[in-house]
């Protein structure tokens, strides 16, 4: 059945809450877990389901996204039949190039949607991190005869994960969605959507055309919320790990959660691996001064100082006498001798000169913009 499904990934999510991390890149291209970008997880999940036709809607700042995806060969999406389609905005007489919402974006790629030969489509965002295959979701969708199936997980009623654009579902005992609420002030449901929707392609085409003709722009707000009682919408419950990277706080938390074995085992299940762009980095090198505890270390790092409860991305240098705790250090940073950093997020290519001390707080990590020199 999975041969009859294609994927459509929207990468234009609001990036205001990720602040400096999205200064020069789209949310989809935000680095995660030492060597990945956010989009790797949803893309790998689609590919591991056996889906070989994936469209990626790019919006703004998509240079690093395109550089990362390339021809799609790392995800085995460099195909003669189907494969990876990067769909950047383009300006025509009825297209400004800036999407006013997901629906507006789907409208502008209707040509791609129409050309896709598969019967079903899975719509996803790009900043929700999980590792699964959609076989069971597809099976349930067909077996329930649903118009739309929404993937959801269970969350605390009032969870303080700094969620934005959060969609809560009221699901009855049969799995059918009775009500949907977007960013409820006082949530009444424990079920939160994971930004994955499955429906028939022809229904999607109809919904887009119909909503656009009424001047609507957002798929969730203008289609799902309005049609929750007329469409047969089902929820597909997912119990694995979900990380929604919608703010600096949640970005920090979900990266740090990888230091927990259960989260690591779930996100990096070897039965369905996460693919990413291969950089041919050398192995990490631990020098005599290295003291490393409870950390995730990527290839290419050179460690000669103390690293405690950190995630070091590729090619990070930790100098002699450095004390690093609770930090996320992105690719290629250079932390020189004797620095002390606590609760700091260093974006790509930062240099911290000898003897610097920086400290943040767990709910408010210090974030240093890409390429800074301190």
């Amino acid at each position, binding site marked *: 059945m999975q041969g009859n499904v294609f994927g459509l990934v929207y990468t234009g999510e609001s990036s205001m809450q990720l602040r400096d991390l999205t200064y020069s890149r789209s949310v989809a291209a935000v680095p995660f877990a030492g*060597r990945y970008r956010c989009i790797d997880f949803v893309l790998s999940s689609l590919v591991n389901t056996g889906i070989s036709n994936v469209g990626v809607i790019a919006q703004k700042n998509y240079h690093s996204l395109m550089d990362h995806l390339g021809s799609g060969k790392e995800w085995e999406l460099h195909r003669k039949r189907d494969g990876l389609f990067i769909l950047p905005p383009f300006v025509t007489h009825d297209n400004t190039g800036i999407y006013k919402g997901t629906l507006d974006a789907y409208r502008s790629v209707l040509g791609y949607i129409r050309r896709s030969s598969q019967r079903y489509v899975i719509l996803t965002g790009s900043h929700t991190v999980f590792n699964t295959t959609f076989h069971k979701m597809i099976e349930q969708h067909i077996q329930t005869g649903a118009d739309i199936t929404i993937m959801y997980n269970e969350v605390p009623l009032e969870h303080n994960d700094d969620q934005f654009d959060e969609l809560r579902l009221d699901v009855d005992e049969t799995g059918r969605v009775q009500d949907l609420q977007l960013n409820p002030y006082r949530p009444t449901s424990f079920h939160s959507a994971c930004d994955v929707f499955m429906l028939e392609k022809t229904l999607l085409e109809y919904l887009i055309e119909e909503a656009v003709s009424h001047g609507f722009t957002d798929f969730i707000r203008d289609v799902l919320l309005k049609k929750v009682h007329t469409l047969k919408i089902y929820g597909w419950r997912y119990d694995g790990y979900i990380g929604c990277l919608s703010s600096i706080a949640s970005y920090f938390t979900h990266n740090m959660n990888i230091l927990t074995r259960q989260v690591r085992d779930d996100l990096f299940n070897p039965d369905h691996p996460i693919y990413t762009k291969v950089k*041919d980095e050398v*192995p990490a*090198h631990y020098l005599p001064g290295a003291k490393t505890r409870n950390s995730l270390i990527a*290839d290419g790092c050179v460690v000669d100082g103390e690293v405690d409860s950190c995630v070091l991305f590729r090619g990070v240098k930790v100098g002699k006498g450095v004390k690093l705790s609770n930090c996320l250090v992105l690719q290629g940073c250079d932390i020189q001798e004797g620095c002390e950093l606590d609760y700091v997020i260093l974006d790509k290519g930062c240099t911290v000169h000898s003897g610097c001390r920086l400290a943040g707080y767990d709910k408010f990590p210090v974030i240093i913009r890409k390429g800074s020199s301190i």
Partner: protein
Amino acid sequence: MIKKKIIAMLLAGGQGSRLSVLTNRIAKPAMPFGGRYRIIDFPLSNCANSDIDTVGVLTQYEPMELNGYIGTGQAWDLDRNSGGVFVLPPYISGSRGEWYSGTANAIYQNIAFIDRYDPEYVLILSGDHIYRMDYAQMLARHVESNADATIAVRGVPIEEAHRFGIMNTDAEGNIIEFEEKPRAPKSNKASMGIYIFSWEQLRQYLIADEATPDSENDFGQNIIPAMLRDKRRMIAYEFKSYWKDVGTIQSLWEANMDIIAEPPLLDLSGKFFNDREWRIFSKSPIMPPHYVGPQASIERSIITEGCEIDGTVTHSVIFAGVTVEPEAEVIDSVLLPGARVQRGAHVRKAIIGENSVVGEAATVGAARQPGDGDYDTSLTGDITLIASGTEIAAGSHVPVGMIVNTGLYGGKQKEA
């Protein structure tokens, strides 16, 4: 077929019997090295970085692993429309067919392959050395000297020269004599087994050599001496950087240790591995970054993707997907991909094969005890060797220099 200026032929046929059980099921070039590489990554990356886009890999021993590893050549950018990397096993043609009987014979049997690209030059490589070399420079020397053959040589200590094939040269670097393992060496220039030939010439010599009944069909024994007899223009190309033959247990272990030496002889963050314009490419294991646990202690080591380290790792080379459990200790060792050292186990100066397990509280590489009996350490010296896929039972004792072959080891079954 588009004509090529040069193509490379990589002799990867070696069984590598001196590597003992490590090459039980894999050809020597497929042997893992340096944390995330295999030996063949070095010549293949050298080719890719030297703009040689057509490589024939000649193999006839346990080709499965090597074939699977090379795949389409994508990892080395050698998936090309015209050219690329080809695995070339011996085959039957008409009613004739035979194994490769020597290095020259292997190339002879693939004359048709080389002719397809109609190259001006052919680069002959072997698949058991660790080095980083710009073949384009060597080719430039070959072309500007108008040579028929160019042989890469490196200086070895004169007292060791008797173990190598030695090139005696005149002042201009022309080779005037070749001596295989001479008793009284006249020079210290050892052949590295890297040759560039002008294809037209080599082709004739290969055909003539094949027609010589008592020839060993070997480059060093037959082809080079024959060309010297004919006064062909042959020059030595001197190479001065790191180069290591990893054909023995001792040298394989040493070359791995060279990476973590202080200062490193093979520098991970220096020119050898970390030149952005000259990467050593390898196939990605597709694993997450490694995790270092709360009780772990790691120093003077290299560690790569997919590892979970909770114990102590000192002065060791750890490959992808290795697990070192709490209270386990690994010192001066090489842990190949997927190896697992369980709680409380001790591993000292050992090479642990792929996916092998060292059971709880077992000791590998421990001092000999009276009950250990006699075993052969001629291949290993003081390095203990655990073959791929071997399980060392909990609490068992593997003394220094022992070779443990596949299966369960501990108590009942001992194989040396």
